[in-house]
């Protein structure tokens, strides 16, 4: 049953005209999507409620050492993964401004949106992982200690990175908001609010270009710092086998890029199929995304190979148990499965690059594959170092996520999908084309 925001009765002569790109029009497919995501989200909230009321005993996590468990599990895996995904949007946005890659503009807004949503989910994943979530939100800022690598993953990411991404999304959309605000619609107040008095004079345009450029320049170091500190959370610890290492930070950055660009490809394909009726997301954009993904993928595979060779050639005594578990033991299926999900897309991308023909289907397949691999690799960094090869000879531990953890994580994915879906209904996914602009203005 289609409902239509535009045609709500407010006087016979004041009938709303539809906005471009399906904004404000709630079709049956979209409603079904919202209902389905909301259901999954509700299940996730129920699971989290179980955790809040019973304690984290309902998760599969237990103490390392005598209790033989893993104290960080699927949640921290998802923290690392989500914050990794956030890499893409802001990178693309910055690259567009710094190198004036104008033909990428159609995906800029979706990419920025992805960054914002991924960062929100990353912060949420930290919150659900805390034993005292409410106190955590306050104390992580109130008693923030920059000496702790954890500072970078929460306080810095929220305060700096998320804020900068929101500003980007805001500045990039302001012109379109001003145009949309001219048309009478149920969302006019929202577009007016976003435009905030913007009238698209040359002086304003210049100011926006300048602000975006300098923000892009400032955000690149912020991005490197945020993703590197996430690597430092593990890379600076000598107390766990397999964590301490200089490669952790750069490898985290590279895999963040891989999963993020993979996500942008999937999102661009979805937008192109559902919203983009003028085929503005063309093959040039997909070719660029494919090449960028291939580049980052090769960098990451290089890091992975270097790490693997070092481990195989000169395994320190304390790491032997861990590397055996990873390469041959109980984690081997996940390890080699993830490697396959990175190598196969790389081969397919190389093939497409050599043939100069980029297939959206294969790109989407590669995007999904590298994201599954990214989750697998993050899990392998977080969990095995806790269950295997403890420095004191504790018994080998075990960890498998409980239904609560799975449900909460699925709920977070559903929330992310909902946020993206909602955004596309209140704001155009693509920058307004000249025809769309004329159409809107003619209704004003």
């Amino acid at each position, binding site marked *: 049953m289609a409902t239509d925001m535009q045609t709500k009765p407010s006087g016979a002569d004041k009938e709303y005209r539809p906005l471009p790109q399906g904004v404000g029009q709630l079709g049956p497919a979209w409603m079904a999507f919202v209902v389905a995501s909301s259901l999954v989200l509700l299940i996730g909230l129920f699971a989290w409620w179980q955790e809040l009321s019973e304690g984290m005993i309902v998760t599969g996590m237990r*103490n390392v050492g005598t209790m033989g468990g893993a*104290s960080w599990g699927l949640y921290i895996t998802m923290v690392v993964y989500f914050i990794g995904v956030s890499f893409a949007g802001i990178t693309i946005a910055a690259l567009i401004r710094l190198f004036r890659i104008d033909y990428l503009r159609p995906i800029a807004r979706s990419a920025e949106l992805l960054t914002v949503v991924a960062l929100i989910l990353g912060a949420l994943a930290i919150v659900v992982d805390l034993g005292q979530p409410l*106190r955590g939100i306050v*104390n992580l800022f109130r008693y923030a*200690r920059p*000496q*702790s690598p954890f500072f970078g993953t929460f306080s810095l990411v929220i305060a700096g990175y998320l804020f900068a991404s929101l500003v980007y999304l805001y500045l990039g959309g302001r012109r379109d908001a001003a145009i949309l605000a001219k048309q009478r619609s149920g969302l006019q107040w929202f577009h007016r609010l976003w435009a905030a008095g913007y009238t698209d004079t040359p002086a304003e345009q210049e100011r926006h270009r300048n602000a975006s450029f300098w923000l892009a320049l400032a955000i690149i170091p912020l991005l490197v710092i945020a993703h590197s500190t996430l690597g430092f959370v593990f890379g600076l610890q000598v107390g*766990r086998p397999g964590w301490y290492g200089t490669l952790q930070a750069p490898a985290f950055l590279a895999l963040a890029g891989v999963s993020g660009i993979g996500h942008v490809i999937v999102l661009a394909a979805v937008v192109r199929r559902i919203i983009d009726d003028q085929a503005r997301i063309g093959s040039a954009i997909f070719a660029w995304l494919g090449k960028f993904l291939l580049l980052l993928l090769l960098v990451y595979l290089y890091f992975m190979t270097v790490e693997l060779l070092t481990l195989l050639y000169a395994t320190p005594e304390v790491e032997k148990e861990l590397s055996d578990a990873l390469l041959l033991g109980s984690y081997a299926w996940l390890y080699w499965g993830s490697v396959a999900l990175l190598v196969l897309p790389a081969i397919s991308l190389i093939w497409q690059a050599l043939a100069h023909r980029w297939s959206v289907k294969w790109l989407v397949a590669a995007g999904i594959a590298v994201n599954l691999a990214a989750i697998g690799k993050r899990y392998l960094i977080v969990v095995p170092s806790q269950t295997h090869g403890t420095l004191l*000879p504790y018994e080998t531990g075990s960890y498998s996520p409980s239904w609560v953890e799975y449900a909460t994580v699925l709920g977070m994915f559903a929330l992310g999908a909902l946020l993206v879906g909602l955004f596309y209904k209140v704001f155009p996914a693509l920058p307004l084309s000249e025809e769309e602009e004329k159409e809107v203005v003619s209704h004003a």
Partner: protein
Amino acid sequence: MTKYAMIVDLNRCQGCRACMEACKIENNTSEAMFWMYVFRFEEGTYPDTRMSFLPRPCQHCDNAPCVKVCPTGSRFKREDGIVLTDPDRCIGCRYCELACPYGVNYFNWQKPQEAQYAEAIDWSDPDIQDATQGAVPPYKNPALDELWGTEQRRTAGGSHAKGVMEKCTFCVHRVEEGGQPACVETCPVTALRFGDVDDPDTPISRFIREHETWHLLEEAGTEPNVLYVGGKPPSHGYREVERPKARV
């Protein structure tokens, strides 16, 4: 300036685990939490096997990784060397646990249960009531909930609140009143010693001067304040035997 340290004499330890018991009773810790833990190791192949024991309290490191990584300063080190947790500031991120190479941190996965170790005992039995005066374990040691030290925080670990970290406190509530940690006082063979190592005239300082001491996981660079005497560091050829029920 006072500086506390503990000596673990492996030449004397017989692995009786009385210290673990004393710790649980003193600090009312929840099921499967061992602030003090005694490994019982076996090495070699039958019939040439050898048993050895290794008590493992918190090492109260001078270069404590847990203190370094704590994002809120809930885990801190006092001037006298004791590493403590403020349960009212802890957010339960469990980073300290993963930074620690010794595995001494315990997270409260749930609310402490009554009669956790003694489901089989009928606490309403008059004979038992006679001995326990009506208390049902874990009873609450009131000293644990008081504020201690110059920081005046609830650091004796009495909260056992759901969702926060806890670990060995060197029995700060006993030490502050001039006593010894419960494990030290209980040890039947004086394998554990505790005292001020800054003052050269204390018994523990004399003991250190007369014996060769070593640290657990020296290579981790944590500079522990628990010193071991005799025996040798555990290697990966060691097998742990006779483990208590340790998983909730």
